[in-house]
């Protein structure tokens, strides 16, 4: 179906080729997962399939890419539209029309299909993806998961044999991600569509995949069975790490696989005491929020929330898309709307409400890094941003740069912030906000688009902030991150707090929020691979 023959892709501005001498054959009906670190060339590989590389992006492509016998050299993307369907990372950016039904029909209109065929396919696709009740809705009013399913539907109506998905679930909460992935696997199993999907959070997709393409970052592609490829690489979901720690071969890819083999491991761990819960701090809270209300026209985003944040704690804020997490963070910081309630921060200037302070002083009480950290950055170089941050915070020159060096060492100062990787940009935005030395730091979806290694780095950074006595709140959908990072978990739904407790209490109580390790080892209270490894080591020394 898809053939890469000696493909090398070279962009003008880089010295090293993005892909080097890649040979691939993806047969019909496979679900092929593409993994690799940020910037390793995943998007380049995906976009080469329908000719966007190099027809649209520029660069030079040597070798040949053929899809169903059509060479992308002679067929630009628009002439492959009936064979390959591409869905990008941000579905909203790719929508051309404004209602669901018209969006589904758009691709077929371009292919000049007759009207009765279009009508029939639209109805079929609405049912196939379970979006029939959304047909007249404006695209902008849909939730993230719905938008992603509409975007997939919009390319499916052209009946492509190949579906290319670039990180389809990176912005979605766990349940919405499951919906999208369930729709994708249904396409593979029922319609025999060949699917190529790139994903950072391997644990979500890897058990569905027939094949894994791993891009180590030097331009080569490692191609093989998922379990075999995962055994040798440093980029691995928690299940694989657990399998390695327990010495299982082949490595388990799904919770079901692992659970069937885990009875032995559970026995070995049975005598080991459960990991100690982080003690609840008894000192006065660093921030007290009472009865916070945030209202937007037509909706109540936050409905009377009370929240205490203690110094030295990492609090994870979870909940589905639109449950009011961001609104709560912005209201607490004081820059967002807040129709009711009080916030008291015990900061360097005594107890104050950041809302009543001018913006420049509020950020010394509570620092917030928004969902798109790039919004905070507007200068041409990293150095200029750092200098500006020092001026804004009346900090001695070099403070921001020193913080940045702690977070990610050796970031070239003359680089443009937009050219940084997601992780580096997040670190820069965080350093800018930390220059004001706020006792409370709020992070809105910080790990979106970060790979495992960047996430590990991020975890270390947050841990360091906490040992300095700050409070960190992380709003996130990433269950595995919360398991390794947070001391306390707060779950929101419909603007209210529905669960609040230690990480172990909240995460072990509900299957939706349980990390993979907990699912495998339930009813034992283990959350992370590190805990299990430590316990096994302890058991080993005793035994």
């Amino acid at each position, binding site marked *: 179906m898809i053939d890469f023959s000696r493909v090398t892709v070279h962009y003008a501005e880089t010295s090293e080729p993005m892909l080097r001498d890649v040979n691939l054959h993806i047969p019909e009906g496979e679900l092929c997962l593409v993994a690799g670190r940020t910037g390793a060339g995943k998007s380049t590989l995906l976009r080469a399939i329908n000719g966007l590389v190099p027809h649209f992006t520029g660069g030079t492509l040597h070798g040949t890419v053929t899809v169903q016998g059509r060479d992308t050299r002679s067929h630009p993307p628009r002439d492959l539209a009936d064979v390959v369907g591409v869905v990008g990372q941000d579905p909203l950016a790719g929508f051309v029309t404004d209602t669901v039904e018209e969006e589904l029909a758009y691709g077929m209109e371009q292919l000049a299909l007759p009207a009765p065929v*279009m009508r029939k396919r639209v109805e079929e696709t609405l049912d196939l993806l379970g979006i029939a009740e959304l047909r007249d809705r404006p695209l902008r009013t849909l939730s993230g998961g719905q938008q992603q399913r509409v975007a997939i539907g919009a390319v499916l109506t052209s009946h492509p044999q190949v579906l290319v998905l670039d990180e389809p679930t990176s912005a979605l909460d766990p349940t919405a991600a499951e919906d999208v992935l369930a729709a994708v696997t249904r396409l593979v199993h029922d319609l025999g569509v060949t699917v190529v999907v790139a994903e950072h959070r391997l644990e979500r997709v890897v058990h569905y995949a027939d094949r894994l393409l791993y891009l180590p970052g030097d331009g080569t592609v490692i191609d093989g069975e998922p379990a075999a490829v995962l055994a040798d690489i440093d980029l691995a979901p928690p299940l694989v790490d657990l399998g390695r720690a327990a010495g299982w071969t082949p490595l388990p890819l799904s919770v079901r696989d692992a659970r069937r083999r885990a009875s032995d491991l559970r026995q070995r761990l049975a005598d080991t005491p459960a990991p100690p819960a982080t003690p609840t701090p008894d000192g006065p809270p660093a921030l007290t929020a009472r009865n916070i209300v945030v209202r937007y026209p037509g909706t109540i985003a936050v409905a009377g929330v009370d929240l205490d944040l203690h110094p030295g704690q990492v609090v994870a804020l979870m909940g589905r898309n639109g449950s009011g997490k961001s609104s709560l963070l912005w209201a607490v910081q004081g820059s967002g709307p807040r129709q009711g309630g009080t916030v008291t921060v015990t900061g360097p200037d005594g107890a104050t409400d950041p809302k009543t302070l001018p913006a420049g002083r509020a*950020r010394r009480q509570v620092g917030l890094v928004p969902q*798109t950290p790039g919004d905070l950055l507007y200068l041409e170089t990293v150095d200029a941003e750092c200098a500006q941050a020092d001026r804004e915070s009346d900090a001695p020159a070099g403070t921001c740069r020193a913080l940045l060096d702690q977070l990610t060492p050796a970031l070239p100062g003359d680089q443009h912030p937009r050219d940084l990787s997601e992780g580096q940009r997040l670190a820069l935005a965080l350093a800018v906000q930390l220059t004001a030395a706020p006792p409370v730091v709020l992070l809105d979806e910080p790990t979106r688009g970060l790979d495992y290694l960047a996430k590990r780095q991020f975890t270390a950074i947050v841990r360091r902030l906490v040992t300095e006595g700050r409070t960190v709140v992380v709003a996130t959908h990433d269950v595995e991150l919360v398991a390794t990072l947070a001391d306390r978990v707060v779950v929101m739904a419909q603007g209210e707090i529905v669960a609040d407790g230690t990480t172990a209490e909240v995460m072990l109580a509900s299957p939706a929020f349980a990390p993979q390790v907990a699912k495998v080892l339930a009813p034992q209270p283990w959350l992370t691979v590190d805990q299990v490894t430590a316990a096994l080591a302890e058991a080993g020394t005793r035994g």
Partner: protein
Amino acid sequence: MTDQATADGVGRQTPVTPPDSRSARAGRLPRALHPGAWWLWALGLATAASHTTNPLPLALLVAAAALVVVRRRGDAPWAFAFRMYLILGAVIVAMRVVFRLVFGGGQGDHVLLHLPEIPLPAWAAGIRLFGPVAAEQLLGGFYDGLRLATMLICLGAANALANPKRLLKAVPGALYAVSTAVVVALSVAPQLVESVLRVRRARRLRGAAGQGLRALRGIALPVLADALDRSLALAAAMDSRGYGRTAAIPAGQRALTGGLVLAGLVGVCVGTYGLLDATVPGYLGLPMLIVGLATAVAGMLLAGRQVRRSRYRPDRWRITEVVVAGCGVATAVVMAVAGSVDPVRLYPPVSPLTWPELTPLMLLVVAVAVAPAWLASPPTLAAHRTPRPVLIAPNGTTRSSPKRDTSESEAQR
């Protein structure tokens, strides 16, 4: 509530049936009309309004437009914009009256009150500030303002009844690329506003240092970078979904179509100028206009043939559309007839003060204008799209949720 007042009596004779069955007769199925039909109707009303300053037919025309909107609009966001046009109309009338009050204009004997006049220097001769206010003068302003407001409200009615974007979809194939660009631009505007708000909020997180040019740069750069990224993503998405698959047209033919359209449009411009300017030779007038139009249409047809794409659920021009558009044209024509028969009643003199009068012809104008409230197909409402049982309420009323059915069900009691 308007619906009940206008119960048309037809339902009275029908036996007790679900209210939908009556409207479900052939041709009366709920559907959205071709937007062009509503626009022709509205333009007809506006043309009629421009032919008179008599407040009675003007007020009746506004009422007619409002009634049609209330009975035949859908439940999409733009359908509720009509209220805005009514408010805007009221503002126009008020402005006209206030202007007459401030700047005078028009004489009159019935002075209502004396405002102190502000003396102006000699170079401003002819302009008067304040001074005596006559009833005739205010009434003249009111008539003028009402005429303008009525025309605006008629166009507002078209906007509420027809999806403006569907009108763009109905353009000929040759203009497809242009209409796509307009649609994309329309959807980009709210996105841009959204990103400005987002970045401004984020700026506050950095203490919003600096004012004026500095702050503008801090907002403009991320917003523009964002917009650029988004437009690239959109272009890539459109390309991979097959937009512009017609690239394989020979260059000669492309040049021919372009030349035809361009030459035709130039011809239309020259022809219009010739028609309006009496001093140019006659052949530059109407003949030139017709030749130019024909050339442009030929070019467009040729270009349209090269566009290889189909349309999903196109709006069809059926009998109902003809009726609605015909009502609009008839409104304008009857008003023009009324003007030639009895011009004085259409432009009631303000000096001396007289009561405006209605003539039978004017009533006919209004009757024709309001006819689509019954003749047009009912709109599709969200409640129609999902199957919904007809409820029998305890008091015996057959109830169903859409508003437009109220008249029928009330009649059946």
